[in-house]
C-alpha cells in the first residue's frame, strides 16, 4: 500500500513573517481551514499575514486543527492563548477546539481570494480535495452567487489522486507531463472517475502513452469544471484557489476553454480558505466581538 500512496503526496510547510513584532499588534486573529485532504492555519496581526502552515489533514479534525496552528506558530513565541479571535472553516470547521466561530468555506474562499488577488476578482474557482466550488463575488469579497459540488469525485483533487495512483506518477508532475504529447488527444469520455479508470486502462492497452492519457484526463477535468463555472457565469477577473491551482495541466486547459486568464497571486493558492477565515475573525474583532 505505502509505495502506491506516495504518488499523491505533496509537501507540507509553514511560514512566518521574519520581521513583524506581533507583541506590538492590537488585533490577533486566526483562521483555521480543516479540509478533507489538507488543513491550513493562518494568523493575522492587525490585518497583515503574520504566519501560516499547510499540512495534510489527519484522521481527526481537532488534532489536525491543533497541529496546524502549532506548526504555524512554531518559533514565533505566540501561543494559542494569544489568539484573540479564531474562525474555523472547511469540512471540519465545527471541530476546531479553540475556534470562537465557524463560517462556511464558500464565504471564506471568496474573502481570501479578494485579499490575495485584489478587489477586481469576480469569479473564484476552488478545486479542493473532495469538492469543487464556483463562486461569484463582489468587490468586497462578498459572495453573490455560488455552487459547490462535493458529491462526485470527478473534477476534484481526489479524482486527480486516483489517476496519479493508477499511472504511478507523482501528483506534482502530472500537469507538466500532460503537455509532453505530440498532439492534444480527445478528452476521456467518461465523467465518472471509476469509469474513467477503466477507460484509461483501455487506452493504455491500445497503445496510448501515460502522458497522452494524462492529457486526455486533464482536459476532461478542465471541461467538466468549465461547465460548472458556466452555471454561475464567468466574469473577469478570474482566480483559482485550492491545490489544483498548482496543476498547470488543468489551469492552462481551463483558461483555454474559458478564453480567460486566471489572475496569478504571490500567495499559496491553498491558504485562501484559512486567510478568508482569518479576515472574518479580524473584522469581527474590529466590530468588538469577544
Amino acid at each position: 500500500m505505502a509505495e502506491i500512496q506516495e504518488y499523491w503526496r505533496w509537501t507540507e510547510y509553514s511560514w512566518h513573517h521574519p520581521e513583524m513584532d506581533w507583541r506590538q499588534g492590537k488585533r490577533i486573529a486566526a483562521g483555521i481551514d480543516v479540509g478533507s485532504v489538507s488543513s491550513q492555519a493562518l494568523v493575522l496581526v492587525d490585518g497583515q499575514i503574520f504566519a501560516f502552515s499547510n499540512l495534510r489533514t489527519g484522521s481527526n479534525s481537532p488534532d489536525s486543527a491543533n497541529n496546524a496552528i502549532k506548526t504555524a506558530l512554531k518559533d514565533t513565541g505566540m501561543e494559542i492563548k494569544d489568539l484573540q479571535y479564531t474562525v474555523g472553516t472547511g469540512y471540519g470547521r465545527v471541530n476546531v477546539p479553540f475556534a470562537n466561530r465557524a463560517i462556511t468555506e464558500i464565504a471564506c474562499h471568496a474573502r481570501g481570494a479578494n485579499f490575495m488577488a485584489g478587489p477586481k476578482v469576480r469569479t473564484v474557482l476552488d478545486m479542493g480535495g473532495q469538492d469543487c466550488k464556483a463562486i461569484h463575488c463582489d468587490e468586497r469579497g462578498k459572495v453573490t452567487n455560488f455552487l459547490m459540488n462535493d458529491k462526485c469525485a470527478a473534477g476534484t483533487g481526489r479524482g486527480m489522486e486516483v489517476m496519479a495512483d493508477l499511472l504511478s506518477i507523482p501528483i506534482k508532475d502530472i500537469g507538466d507531463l500532460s503537455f509532453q504529447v505530440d498532439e492534444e488527444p480527445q478528452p476521456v469520455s467518461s465523467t465518472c472517475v471509476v469509469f474513467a479508470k477503466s477507460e484509461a486502462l483501455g487506452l493504455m492497452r491500445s497503445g496510448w502513452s501515460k502522458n497522452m492519457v494524462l492529457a486526455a484526463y486533464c482536459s476532461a477535468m478542465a471541461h467538466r469544471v468549465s461547465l460548472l463555472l458556466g452555471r454561475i457565469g464567468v466574469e473577469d477577473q478570474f482566480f483559482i484557489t485550492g491545490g489544483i491551482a498548482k496543476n498547470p495541466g488543468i489551469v492552462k486547459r481551463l483558461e483555454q476553454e474559458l478564453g480567460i486568464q486566471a489572475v496569478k497571486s504571490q500567495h499559496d493558492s491553498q491558504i485562501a480558505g484559512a486567510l478568508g477565515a482569518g479576515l472574518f475573525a479580524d473584522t469581527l474583532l474590529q466590530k468588538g466581538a469577544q
Partner: protein
Amino acid sequence: MIKAGIDVGAKTIKVVLMEDGKIRGKGKVLSGFDQEESAKEALEQALMEAQLSREAIGIIVTTGNGRKAISYATDDVTEARAAALGAVFLYPSARTVIDVGAEEARAIKCDSSGKVLDFAVNEKCAAGSGAFTEAMARALEVPLEELGPLSLRSTQTIPMNAQCTVFAESEVVSLIHSKTQKADIAVRRVGLEPELVLIGGVAHNPGFVESFKRTAELDNVRTAEDPEFVGAIGAALAAGE
C-alpha cells in the same frame, strides 16, 4: 428453430438458446478485450449445454452496450426492450423491471406483452451500478459474492455520506451498507407498478435486494432466477418477431 440471444454487457457476455419458448442452453464469459471473440466462447458454452451444433441456430439477436459489435448477429434490440421481454416472459405479471448491471442501472415500465411504456437509465455514474459493489468488496477485502450476505448480518444501518464510489471507498471501511438510491430513483421516475422484478447481476446481492425493498417501501419485489440472463432471454424472444 433455435434462437440465440446474446447480451453483450460491460463486464460479462450472456448467451441464451431458446426453442419454442423453452430455454435450451446458457453461456456466460467475461467480456474481455475482444467482445466478438468472447461472445463466440459464450455461444459455444451454451451449445455444449444444449448439445447442439452451431448450424442448429437459425437466428441470433444481440442486446447490451456492445450489441453492435457482433458481426454475425442477425439483428439487435435495445437493453430496455430485451429486459422487459425477458422479465415478462419469466414473470407474466411483471410491470416494472429494475435492471442493475455492471456499469448502469435502468428502470422500465412495461405492459403485459413486454412492450416498453417508459424507462429511465443511469449509465454515467458508478454509484448504483455493479462497479460500486465491486469497489466496496475490494475496499472491504471480501469476495463480491459474500458482500450481500455479510451486509444482512449487520445489526444497524449506518447511512453513508458519500454517494460517489471514489469517496465511498475511503469512507467504507467501517460501514457495510448496500447502495440502493440510484435504482430507487429510477423507479420513482417511471412510477411504481405493483409487480416489480429485479434483474441484472447486482440482483444476486441479497443486501441490495433487502435494502431496495426497504427504500422503495415495497414488499412484492421479485428477484429473477439467474437475473443476469434476463436480457439475453429477451433478445432471443425478440428474434421471434
